[in-house]
């Protein structure tokens, strides 16, 4: 049982400049929470404040309802896995994992039992007597995790733990971490700048940007209902296409035409009244674009990326902008082909000039709640 709450947490390394600008967040018991954001947004800083390695300039950090701002790192009952693994080079794998228990003065028998148990879970038994230097990257990673497991912490903290591994190993460790999360039924906070890791692992994603939380939600919530332009552009690979446009006069039936550069018009159904002439940004996921002979967007395929199961087509529009569209794996399209693309306006995302999402009204035939059928999904935003 471990919950964690941040209340108005702030951090200034230097007086006058804030790195973390007031964060409120709740982490539930056994939740896998991922902090994601671009480099330098303060993810590590936030994690290190939770760990107790950095002072909290203002605000409260609560673990299981108790304020722990001034509790030293070891007594918070958290364990951290560092990006560099930070193994103790002069100790064997077993000593690395048992170090915390040794410091805590636990009897040797108990230490050995816990280390053996962690080694079993992580398949490290054959290397227990080796030193970190002679291990592979993946094994070192597992030792670092083992060191955390042995302490039976209330919360596991990970700071970009997979970023030093090659792609294949990273995929494998991702699965292993998820299995571990199941097996240990532990609360985990995981920092990454890789939105694929965030999407695939998280129960809850916290998108950070410049020291602020942009949005908190489940992966699919963030994917389907980004609250602002930043989240829309950050979550999803390939990225959402973002096209600037201008609002026209409302037509009968509640639709509003948005004129994009190049004169293409897309009719949306905003839930609120939009002033004609105001600028907006239209967001279209690559999978929402389909080829159609009568489609409003036309352009030449600049680049065709074949990923096997699907094909990504980068299209240069006549207006000069580039769109990425997702096509079938076997689509015969080739570079320099001229194609036309159509989009269902109801699955478009609409953002105001200040970057916040403008919700669309539900079209009458939509089936709310069916998260998987994207084509039938209206873009509902929960601001």
């Amino acid at each position: 049982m471990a919950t964690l709450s941040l209340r108005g947490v702030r951090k200034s390394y230097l007086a006058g400049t804030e790195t973390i600008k007031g964060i409120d967040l709740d982490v539930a018991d056994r939740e896998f929470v991922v902090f994601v954001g671009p480099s330098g947004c303060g993810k590590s800083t936030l994690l290190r404040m939770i760990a107790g390695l950095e002072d909290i300039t203002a605000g409260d950090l609560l673990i299981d309802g108790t304020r722990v701002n001034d509790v030293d790192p070891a007594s918070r009952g958290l364990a951290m896995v560092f990006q560099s693994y930070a193994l103790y080079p002069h100790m064997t794998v077993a000593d690395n994992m048992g170090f915390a228990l040794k410091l805590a003065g636990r009897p040797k028998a108990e230490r050995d039992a816990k280390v053996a148990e962690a080694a079993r879970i992580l398949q490290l038994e054959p290397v227990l007597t080796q030193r970190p230097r002679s291990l592979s990257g993946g094994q070192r990673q597992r030792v670092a995790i083992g060191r955390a497991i042995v302490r039976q912490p209330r919360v596991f903290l990970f700071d970009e733990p997979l970023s030093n591994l090659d792609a294949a190993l990273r995929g494998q460790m991702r699965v292993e971490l998820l299995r571990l999360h199941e097996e240990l039924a532990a609360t985990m906070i995981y920092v990454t700048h890789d939105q694929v890791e965030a999407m695939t692992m998280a129960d809850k994603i916290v998108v950070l940007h410049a020291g602020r939380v942009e949005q908190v939600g489940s992966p699919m919530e963030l994917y389907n209902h980004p609250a602002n332009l930043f989240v829309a552009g950050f979550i999803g690979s390939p990225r959402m296409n973002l096209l600037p446009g201008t609002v026209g006069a409302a037509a009968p039936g509640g639709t509003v035409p948005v004129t994009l550069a190049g004169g293409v018009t897309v009719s949306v159904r905003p839930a609120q009244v939009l002033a004609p002439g105001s600028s907006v940004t239209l967001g279209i996921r690559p999978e929402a674009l389909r080829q159609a002979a009568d489609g409003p967007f036309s352009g030449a395929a600049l680049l065709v990326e074949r990923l096997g199961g699907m094909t990504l087509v980068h299209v240069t529009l006549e207006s000069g902008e580039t769109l990425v569209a997702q096509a079938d794996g076997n689509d015969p399209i080739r570079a320099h082909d001229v194609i036309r693309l159509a989009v269902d306006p109801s699955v478009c995302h609409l953002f105001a000039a200040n970057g916040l999402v403008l919700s669309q009204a539900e079209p009458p035939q939509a089936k709310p709640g069916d998260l998987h059928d994207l084509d039938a999904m209206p873009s509902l935003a929960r601001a």
Partner: protein
Amino acid sequence: MQQSRLKRVLILLAGWCVALLLFFPILWMVLTSFKTEIAAISTPPLLFFRPTLSAYAAVQAQSNYLHFALNSIVISVGGTVVALLLSIPAAYAMAFHPTRRTRGTLLWMLSTKMLPPVGVLVPIYLLFKTSGLLDTRIGLLGIYALMNLPITVWMLFTFFREMPHDILEAGRMDGAGTWGEVWHLLLPLTMPGVASTGLLSLILCWNEAFWSLNVTSVNAAPLTAFIASFSSPEGLFFAKLSAASTMAVAPILVFGWFSQRQLVRGLTFGAVK
């Protein structure tokens, strides 16, 4: 090919020349110590002669080598241990918790080495006199420790700075307090650096002559004072002086020979890599 070989030979020759130049005085001292007093001052200098231990016998008859050697060992080792005990926490603080003033503090510490020691001779002599520290091992030991502090702090600081912070932070998460971090992680991992710092301090203490000559006379006098006692008022006895000097530097030479690998590794740490 031909040219690079010639170059290598030239460099080798130059290296030997420099080494001989540096080594020659020591060689000459050792040779002289095995001569009779007459042979020692003969002109032209004798390169071949019948070696004798008479100078050594004379030295041992005149003063008690072991007494001086013991003083040297106690004072040098003691001074080094005290210097390390003080500079390890200082360097730890400066390397891992630097402030705006850290750089300045380090430079200030180093600048104290630029002051000629004779500048503080009178105040220190008076302090020692009133506090009864004159001609005591503890007094000289204290001076040596303080004298080497700037160097040991600087060296340890540069070694500690190379240490990844993550490892110490991992230790902190694991429940090692500040002392635990230093004892279980920092010192084992920077041992080569700490060892070469200690070795250097030991050598500097062993060879120090200014303070040992000025604040000790008999009881606490180390080997440097032992050498000086042979440049006596009765005139110079070169063979005896050389024998005394050889006996004084022999332990540290042997010690330096065995630890040279460690010393070089430590002193070039950070520079190479």
